């Protein structure tokens, strides 16, 4: 490796660092329970705000979104017999809010369902959202035993819309990113 390569690598990381100067968490890899525990503990216990329910809100939102990535990512790694979803998690701090972003590959076959769900959630007011949550929770569990209300609960807890981004990768998969703002 010559000098130029070294320099350009360093520059790329520096650019990235500068872009994310208010980043609290930036992670990419398997959504392993030990890593999620470490990040979750930080969110629950840190001094981001003295108002405790705020931290619990952030923690709850983090858990629901992280579980979705772990269960539904189209990119997986096998560790000790269990299959773990791979994805990206970024938490940034802004003047009046925190932003929690997750991103992962998703099979195109599941894409419409999740996009439709997010769009439905964003169209509902708070009472309608609570009714939608009750209907969904009453229904059959998901293939992973879930209650199918993670995203609804995220919208209720954050009181903000779910901001989604879809990038087509190939015939089989797309990249799906979800951004949630949590007001300070």
């Amino acid at each position, binding site marked *: 490796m010559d000098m130029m390569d070294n320099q350009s690598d360093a520059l790329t990381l520096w650019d990235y660092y500068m872009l994310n100067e208010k980043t609290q968490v930036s992670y990419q890899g398997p959504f392993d329970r030990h890593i999620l525990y470490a990040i979750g503990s930080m969110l629950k216990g840190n001094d981001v705000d003295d108002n405790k329910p705020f931290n619990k809100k952030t923690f*709850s939102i983090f858990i*629901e979104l992280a579980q979705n990535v772990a269960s539904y990512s189209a990119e997986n790694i096998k560790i000790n017999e269990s299959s773990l979803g791979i994805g990206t998690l970024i938490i940034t701090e802004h003047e009046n809010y925190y932003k929690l972003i997750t991103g992962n590959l998703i099979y195109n076959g599941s894409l419409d369902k999740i996009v439709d769900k997010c769009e439905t959630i964003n169209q509902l007011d708070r009472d309608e959202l609570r009714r939608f949550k009750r209907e969904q929770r009453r229904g059959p*569990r998901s293939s992973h035993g879930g209650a199918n209300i993670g995203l609804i609960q995220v919208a*209720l807890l954050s009181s903000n819309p779910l901001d989604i981004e879809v990038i087509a990768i190939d015939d089989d998969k797309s990249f799906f990113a979800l951004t949630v703002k949590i007001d300070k």
Partner: protein
Amino acid sequence: MENLNITGVHDVYFRPTVNLDADTGILEISGESYLEETVKFYKQILIWIENYIQEIDKPITFNFRLDYYNTTTSRSILDILDLLKLYQDKEGRVDVNWYCKEEELEYLQEDIEDLAEDSDIEINLIVL
């Protein structure tokens, strides 16, 4: 009938503390609930309650003292409330209390209300 006691664990997953007392009819779940195998964990509680209703057939006071539960757990809480409602409809005496710290109220109250509405059972919210 044997009591069911499970000690809570706060590790990579959060297992709540469970105390189901067949002598007093006081059943409690407390702490935090975020489990690897949620359905399996709550199944043993549901089976215990079913047996209590069949064998003991006395009043139940169910105390929830959970201050964190994920949405997967909330589906299992609904299963418990459905079972209690069924007992109430068959003349069983059931009181459901949810103990909640004041600072957790903003975060928990709506979902407790939704669980009560969905199961059609009254939940007494007791602010600590």
